[in-house]
């Protein structure tokens, strides 16, 4: 497995895209810190970037990478290597390099300028979102042989989770605003990894008061250790489930 990961990782480094991505994150973070001296505000601005850009880049890059590795995968399949090892090797290498980009691009400036616990939550949310969207990208890649179609599906995932789902959620809460909705919204939010990450961040930044009673409820729930375990478990499920399904599909795929 480590051998496969090593070769895929080298291959990713050769395309230089990862370096550009790291540089982009680095510049953004430094610029934010330069613009504002209040760490809380900086983290808030960074949060918006992390929640929009990181999932988009992760899912598009992973899908394109998977299709560009078809030759490598075909070559490996003729060798005495397990299919699962090839697939998971690809996954871990992509997930590892994208996570590394975030840790370096956002983490290093944070260390230099000094950030509190909310900074770490941001890094945690960024890495978790990266893993979730790499998983979704691999799922959409094994479902079709057509590269354009797979990128379309990948983009649809991104649109759905970052825009459409929120709209639906807002509509539901608005329509049923006369009823107690805390538990329902909490459940619905679990179905969207980006929302999950956003709420984690907002609670860290102590602006949950802006969210009214629901905010207080979340604060109560996520502030406790059960909440932390719950959110990590949900994000973890979002990472593992698509990969497991994708690996099963890949195992039966004709190449």
């Amino acid at each position: 497995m480590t051998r496969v990961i090593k070769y895929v990782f080298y291959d990713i480094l050769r395309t230089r895209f990862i370096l550009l991505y790291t540089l982009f994150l680095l510049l953004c973070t430094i610029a934010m810190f330069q613009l504002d001296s209040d760490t809380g505000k900086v983290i808030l601005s960074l949060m918006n970037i992390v929640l929009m850009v990181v999932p988009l880049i992760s899912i598009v890059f992973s899908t394109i990478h998977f299709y560009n590795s078809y030759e490598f995968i075909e070559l490996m399949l003729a060798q005495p290597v397990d299919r699962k090892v090839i697939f998971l090797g690809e996954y871990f290498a992509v997930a590892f390099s994208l996570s590394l980009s975030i840790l370096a691009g956002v983490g290093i400036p944070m260390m230099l300028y000094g950030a509190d616990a909310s900074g770490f939550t941001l890094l945690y949310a960024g890495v978790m979102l990266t893993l979730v969207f790499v998983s979704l990208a691999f799922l959409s890649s094994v479902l079709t042989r057509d590269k354009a179609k797979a990128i379309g599906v990948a983009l649809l995932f991104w649109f759905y989770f970052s825009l459409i789902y929120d709209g639906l959620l807002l509509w539901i809460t608005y329509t049923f605003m006369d009823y107690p909705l805390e538990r329902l919204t909490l459940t619905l939010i679990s179905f969207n990894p980006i929302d999950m990450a956003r709420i984690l961040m907002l609670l860290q930044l102590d602006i949950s008061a802006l969210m009214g009673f629901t905010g207080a409820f979340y604060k109560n729930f996520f502030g406790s250790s059960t909440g932390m375990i719950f959110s990590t478990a949900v994000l973890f499920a979002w990472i593992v489930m698509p990969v497991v399904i994708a690996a099963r599909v890949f195992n039966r795929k004709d190449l």
Partner: protein
Amino acid sequence: MISIQQLRKNFGRLQALKGIDVEFRSGKSYAMIGPNGSGKTTLIKSILGMVIPTSGEILVDGENIRHHWSYREKIGYMPQIGQFPDNMRIGQLLDMIRNIRQHPPAVDEELVEAFQLNAMLDKRMHTLSGGTRQKVSAALAFLFSPPVLFLDEPTSGLDPLSVEILKEKIVHEKERGKLIVITSHILSDLDELTTDVVYMHEGTVKYNNSLETLKEVTGEQKLGKAIANLMRSVSAQHPRIHKSHEKLNTIVL
């Protein structure tokens, strides 16, 4: 060595393999012949585990290959069109294939040297010509001196000198008692290299016997003519193809 029982493969509605029963024995070399789309490559890819059969069994050394992968240590495969990671150099590719194995056996670099690939180890794969890719492909297939070799149209795209080098290597390996399966449309090549003929047609095996028997039965000395005879008798059983032949004749006339 390799035994295939009732192998079927459907691609959607298309039946690529319709119940194949074949044995490939060690020490023999087989010419797999058949028109385009007759299922030759699908059969080879099924044995390699790249294509997952719809039903049927494939046994390598008596062991079912379903969900297994270590049996591929015994197989060298030269694909019809060699696909390689574009950014890699030839040297890196050779190193990678060597390193990916957990127990790397002794390597056989005869072809690497004969094709003078050592002089171009720094070239990236996407800059290579079709013929050079084919040479890399061949070198990789023979690299670990595996007991089984599947060569899918090995000579296409190679210059005459390289064809001779490759043919010499195949004969050499055949004499060492390896099982070799070659598909090709250049029948004169196969005449020198093979001992047995497997003739495929629309996903079925129509003929499977030794080359000598085929020549005796058809009364021809050359494989090309013998196969032409065979094809004629096969298409006589398939009126649809016969008709298309007739149509072709009338157009020519």
